[in-house]
């Protein structure tokens, strides 16, 4: 098939495209509602129960009009951004993350939990359907990082940095893409699902070793937050790369499936 007069390849099957956009939606909702849930207790402790002595992150408001963020005991003033923020009702008050980035856009823990627990299912079932279909169709093989790709990682990065004229030879996905997708889909996605389960009392009663494996309930909450942060990091880099590597071609291929090789 030709797109814009040039030869194109069918790069993304329907299920990949559908799950990609469903993930985008679920990702945005899970981040927003997750920050809403975080706001109800804006501390992260590296322990089983809450323990101020093992506090890794604390966002608070020591006085009206002041917001602070404490990371490993180092306190930064973050008024307006974290701790003392827009409450979504036209005022500023003691809220960790600001209302415009939380779901719902004002303090509502019950609402945040409803969104979070529903879209957690959407994201997880979507992942499962994509995984099974990709494994059957063989697309997974193109995507997963292999030991032989490791020595190509730096040459690929060197190419991006314009230190090298040609990228190392590779298939549909280059070695850096494979590394990123493998990390997101097979490390970070399972991490946020398992840590989310591990901090739930009903799951803890069924599978206590899971909660223990992450260091206990509060520690699982910390890992859940770290996993979220890494996924946001991937999201930013991914969006930047799509925007800089032929945004029209990239977007078209994830909508219609047809990608025009450069």
């Amino acid at each position, binding site marked *: 098939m030709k797109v814009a007069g040039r030869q194109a390849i069918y790069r993304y099957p329907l299920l990949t495209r559908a799950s990609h956009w469903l993930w985008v939606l679920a990702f945005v909702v899970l981040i927003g509602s997750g920050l809403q849930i975080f706001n109800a207790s804006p501390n992260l402790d590296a322990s089983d*129960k809450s323990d101020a002595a093992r506090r890794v992150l604390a966002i608070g408001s020591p006085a009206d009009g002041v917001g602070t963020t404490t990371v490993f005991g180092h306190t930064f003033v973050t008024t307006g951004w974290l701790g003392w923020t827009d409450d979504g009702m036209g005022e500023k008050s003691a809220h960790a993350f600001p209302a415009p980035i939380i779901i719902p856009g004002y303090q509502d823990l019950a609402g945040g939990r409803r969104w979070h627990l529903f879209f957690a299912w959407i994201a997880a079932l979507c992942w499962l359907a994509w995984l099974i279909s990709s494994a059957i169709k063989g697309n997974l093989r193109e995507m997963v990082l292999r030991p032989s790709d490791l020595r190509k990682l730096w040459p690929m990065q060197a190419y991006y940095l314009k230190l090298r004229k040609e990228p190392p030879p590779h298939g549909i996905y280059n070695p850096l893409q494979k590394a990123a997708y493998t990390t997101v889909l097979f490390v970070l996605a399972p991490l946020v699902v398992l840590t989310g389960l591990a901090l739930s009392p009903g799951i803890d009663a069924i599978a206590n070793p899971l909660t223990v494996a992450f260091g206990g309930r509060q520690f699982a909450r910390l890992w859940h937050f770290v996993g979220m942060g890494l996924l946001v990091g991937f999201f930013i880099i991914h969006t930047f790369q799509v925007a800089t590597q032929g945004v029209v071609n990239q977007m078209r291929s994830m909508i219609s499936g047809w990608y025009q090789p450069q």
Partner: protein
Amino acid sequence: MRRRLFLASAASALAGCGPIGSALNNNDNVRRILASAEGLNHFLIGTRGLAREYRDNDVDRHFRVNGFATPSDTRYADLVARNFAPYRLIVEGAVERPQTFSLAQLQRMPQQTQITRHDCVEGWSVIGKWSGVRLGGLLDVVGLRNDARYVVFRCMDNDGSGNLYYESLDLHQARHPQALLALRLNDAPLDPDHGAPVRLRVPTQLGYKSAKWIARIEVVGSFATIAGGHGGYWEDQGYEWYAGI
């Protein structure tokens, strides 16, 4: 230029999510769809296994106080002043032998001690040592009728607007070996701020299920006609009835 436009629109799309989410959050149909996850979680996770039990030196000496303010009405003040001697736990509804229990009677029943973690829906946790009567044991004493489905806990605390706190468990949850009517916390009689003289402990679910200051236990076939009809004070405010996750 195009790149900057793309990034700017992506950023504004993200910033718009909060208000859009708020609008959708208040739509009844959306709310019903989102709440469907609760049924799935209840079915799949349910109340299985046992909450982890800890050792004595894991216990938090200062157990965090949360929830409504300690009752301040004259009746409760009188109970406290008289060391809960006039207190009677009423057990009624779909039971074979409705009856009342004094604190002394409850103390004479077989006691269970558990050191378990209290997981608040807000995200924090605290470990306490609880002693009291197994809820399942008490239900055996009064005997359940065939139409019994839920055990409702009527409490003495209110939200400041006069709405009394209440909670409910189904029979499976009520008969869980760790579902406890606690009379003691950390080797001392329950103090007023922690729900004296009798409170519930449900370590397999989030803290709001563990009702404090229980006055009356009512066994019912359905909780649809009680208060907001969702089986608990916080459930009536939009929280899940199944609080295992």
